[in-house]
């Protein structure tokens, strides 16, 4: 059970979309938002769930929390069927929606927490400990008496994360937890999640647009597109699968024609702008021999290496495999 803490087998979600095409005429169309997804997440793992807009990420999360009933397939979280036993599952999961708050908008943060305390029947001492910890680590001390609507996005998000953890959930779903946050808030949230996972082995599933979230938090990443799982594995391997390339930016002493190097180094010039040139090479290859050769053959002033952008990797993955 611990190795299959979250279990999905061929899970589907089909929406019937009605579109008005005339005054009374309506067109019905079937949209397969999630189209046969299967995966397992063991207890204590932190997984990134990424994909383009409308790929089915949020729909999957809504099925995992019991908000939506799947149209097909089998789904279990901690052995519970979320759609059938939604309220029972609610005691064991925490959910943070980046776009909307689960807090009571007009009330001070403290009131929301107090209500969670009673609503989830959290033992008094447990509640105090958890709240104190969240207040300290998420820096909420000065915010407890402020109505939620007066909080900034970053403050509210921290408040929401605390609210989702007061009842010691075994799994935490985060839907875009860093969307719209400034750099400092993002770092704070990421650090907190990392500690939570390490200390309490809370299982975490997060969807995000910010690939730095994934790089800093998750060893495993799942990529979903058009409702299907197109990649499930280590982040590092995603680069290989996606044939991703790193970029070497070199500044030469003067304007020169595009650099040419020995053919055994698979490198190509992608851009030339005055004395600066951009060279692309496979992410799986070391940059050292390339730099050495460059320094030997060309008057090098400065250079830097740019890591691949995962969105581009995903795009390339589709391009290289038409079956996706």
């Amino acid at each position, binding site marked *: 059970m611990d190795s299959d803490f979250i279990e999905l087998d061929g899970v589907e979600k089909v*929406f*019937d979309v009605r579109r008005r095409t005339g005054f009374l005429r309506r067109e019905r169309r079937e949209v397969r938002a999630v189209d046969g997804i299967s995966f397992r997440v063991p207890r204590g793992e932190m997984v990134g769930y990424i994909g383009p807009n409308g790929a089915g990420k949020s*729909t999957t999360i*809504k099925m995992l*929390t*019991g*908000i*939506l*009933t799947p*149209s097909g397939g089998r789904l279990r979280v901690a052995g519970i069927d979320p*759609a059938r036993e*939604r*309220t*029972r599952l*609610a*005691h*064991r*999961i925490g*959910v943070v*929606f980046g*776009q*909307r*708050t*689960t807090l*009571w908008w*007009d*009330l001070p943060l403290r*009131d929301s927490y*107090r*209500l969670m305390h*009673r*609503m*989830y*029947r959290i*033992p*008094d*001492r447990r509640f105090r400990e958890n709240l104190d910890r969240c207040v300290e680590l998420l820096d909420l001390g000065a915010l407890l008496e402020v109505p939620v609507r007066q909080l900034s996005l970053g403050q509210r998000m921290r408040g929401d994360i605390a609210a989702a953890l007061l*009842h*010691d959930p075994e799994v935490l779903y985060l839907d875009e937890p860093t969307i719209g946050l400034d750099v400092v808030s993002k770092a704070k949230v990421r650090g907190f999640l990392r500690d939570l996972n390490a200390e309490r082995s809370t299982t975490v599933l997060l969807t995000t647009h910010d690939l730095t979230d994934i790089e800093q938090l998750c060893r495993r990443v799942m990529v979903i597109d058009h409702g299907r799982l197109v990649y499930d594995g280590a982040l590092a391997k995603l680069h290989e699968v996606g044939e991703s390339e790193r970029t070497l930016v070199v500044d030469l002493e003067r304007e020169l024609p595009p650099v040419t190097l020995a053919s055994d180094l698979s490198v190509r010039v992608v851009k030339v702008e005055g004395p600066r040139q951009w060279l692309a090479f496979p992410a799986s290859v070391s940059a050292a021999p390339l730099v050495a050769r460059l320094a030997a053959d060309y008057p090098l002033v400065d250079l830097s290496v740019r890591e691949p952008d995962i969105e581009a990797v995903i795009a390339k993955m589709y391009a290289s495999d038409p079956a996706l």
Partner: protein
Amino acid sequence: MEAGAGRRAGEPEPAAWSRPGFDDRSRLLEGVRAYGLIVAMWMRSTMAYRASFVMTTLGNFVVTAFDFVTIMLMFAHVDALGGYTLPEIALLYGTSATAFGLSDLLFGSVDRLGRRVRDGTLDTLLVRPVPVLAQVAADRFALRRLGRITQGLLVLGYALATLDIAWTPLRVVMLPLMVLSGAAIFGAVFVAGAAFQFFAQDASEVQNAFTYGGTTVLQYPPTIFAKELVRGVTFVVPLAFVSWLPALYVLGRDYPLELPEWVAFLPPVVAGLCWLLAGLAWRTGLRAYRSTGS
């Protein structure tokens, strides 16, 4: 007040979901408990601004009182309306206003459901371990609605003080019975209307026609309305059971539509039936939402 309040601090306690009997605990009781918790929070927050509470409640009282002032002005020119005197109408008005006020206080918030569906905040209620209806009903519990209840009770008091009623034990019992059943009937209409909003998110106006509109109709005697309307509020949306039928019994007047006398005792039964239907509608709506997500 709280189940765990007597427990010694620090004593470990199994999580709620693992406690035996949790599954069997009636959902209704869970809902009532959650409702109480949320309402208590809103009341505390309202009371933090006492002056504002007094002002808004007073405002609520004055605005609703204008309704009855209108009727009183009418009686400055006529002696009877549809064959009813002012104190008689005050009884109809007081009953329906009090019942509706009570219902509006307890369940009025459900009419925001459509907005919650549209902006997606309903999802945040679905991930909590308590029934959604309780959360929706208790949301933004508006204590200022006591203004309307106060106003209704005052008019009712005036009616009882001025009317010359041949009191019997049954007629005495009928008073609280009709106010409470009436509140329950209006409550069921609120919930059914909210359930309809799962399908048509802009339908809160339709609901208002039955709730706010319904109470306005009930404030006048049935004799001034067309038969079709009277039939409608008796058999389709049974608002006639809120005040007309039981109040006419107390007054000893003839019923509309030649209904037999015993229908005056039906309000609790009608309220039960209404809640059964409203509950079914709510479940159907929520199920549809959870399968369509919109």
